[in-house]
């Protein structure tokens, strides 16, 4: 499923075409549910957030701009943000325990490989692999699990400022590496 085809389904959804929206859901919901589950492992809560996300996507379909983002990045970002907001809304101290940062290599290919850009994943993983392991692990823990700088700093036993500079420096190096690859 190409980005153009997903964008076309979104455009038809914006016109009120519920059939197109159902097709869009069928093509993207497993990916979004996976993203949400990693942040909110309790399934009823994750299902609730998934439902909210698609109602939002339906309502905002007309605002999707293919010049600004790919359709899958757009909806995945909505899903991550909703899941993280739900996590943050919990009373302090009731956060789910954060598992150790995942090794991306263990995940294997995404089942919906039709949506994957395996080359991009490989390049991003290569760029992450060049970082200090603790810095890369912090980036992964934020992105995949919704961990905060505060939580990670406590886990690593370093000041928050140190943790922030690990992550920010890591992201800047990753970006530099990706730009070099592209050059």
């Amino acid at each position, binding site marked *: 499923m190409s980005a153009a085809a997903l964008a076309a389904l979104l455009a038809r959804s*914006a*016109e*009120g075409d*519920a059939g197109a929206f159902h097709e869009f*859901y069928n093509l993207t*919901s*497993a*990916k979004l*549910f*996976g*993203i949400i589950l990693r942040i909110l492992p309790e399934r009823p809560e994750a*299902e609730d957030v*998934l*439902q*909210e996300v*698609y*109602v*939002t996507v*339906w*309502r905002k379909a007309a*605002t999707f701009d293919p010049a600004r*983002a*790919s359709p*899958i*990045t757009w909806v995945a*970002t909505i899903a*991550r943000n*909703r899941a993280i*907001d739900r996590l*943050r809304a919990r009373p302090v101290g009731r956060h789910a325990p954060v598992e150790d940062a995942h090794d*991306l290599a263990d*995940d*294997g290919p*995404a*089942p*919906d490989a039709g949506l*994957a*850009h*395996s080359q*991009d*994943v490989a390049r*991003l993983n290569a760029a992450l692999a060049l970082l200090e392991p603790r810095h890369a692990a912090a980036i*992964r823990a*934020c*992105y*995949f699990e*919704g*961990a*905060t*700088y*505060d939580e*990670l700093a406590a886990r690593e036993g370093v000041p928050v400022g140190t943790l922030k*500079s690990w992550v*920010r*420096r890591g*992201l*800047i*190096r990753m*970006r530099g590496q*990706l730009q070099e690859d592209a050059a």
Partner: protein
Amino acid sequence: MSLPPDNGLAGLTELEAQAMDHALGAGNRAERKAAELRLLSDPAFRAAVERWQALLSPLDDATPAEAPPPAVWQAIAAEVAPVVRAAPAAAPPAGFWNNLALWRVLGLGGTALAALAAALLVLPAAPPPAPPAANAGPSLVATLADSEGRPLLAAAFDAASGEVRFAPVAAPEGGAGKVPELWVIEGKNPPRSLGVIDISAGSAHAIPRARLAGLKPGAVLAISIEPAGGSPTGAPTGPVIATGALSAA
């Protein structure tokens, strides 16, 4: 932000740091709210966040996909199916306030749209059309949503009449002795009060033209809960219950 110069972060702007934090999702609740507000009012920030999101998005492919149970789609379908979004054949121009396409732009559907139609019925008769001011700006609309993204209120600014009107979508949380106050945030300027408003169900509200001069798409409307009579300081003092960016109608 005073970081040592040798840590690889020299030259990192505050905007860029906040953008990467937000794209990564690492902020706490307050930081995320601040970033969301900035997303609405600062296009450069929004562009920076979108660049980081695009850079990080291949990571999503490393997360195992998992098919949700069928009940999820059924619940979604129940919310989206009744929405009639096709614009009706344009009868004689119905006027700005009851232009269905306008409210459709606001993203309101289903029962919200029905409630809105009811609200529109009780609007006072439109004033006699004033001759359009020579430099009347565009008519503007905004959907004000709470922090969870649920639409709370639709606002529409009619440049021709110079009025802002509201149609409530959901009942905002108030409190005894508290009143909602409307603010506009233009660029990085501090919030400017548009006055205490009445957003109870079925009512509409007009704001003096002088306060609305120069409103442009991209400005953000926000509603905070203030003591009776409005904020005593001239800046929001109570919780912000809803925000939404103005766009051209």
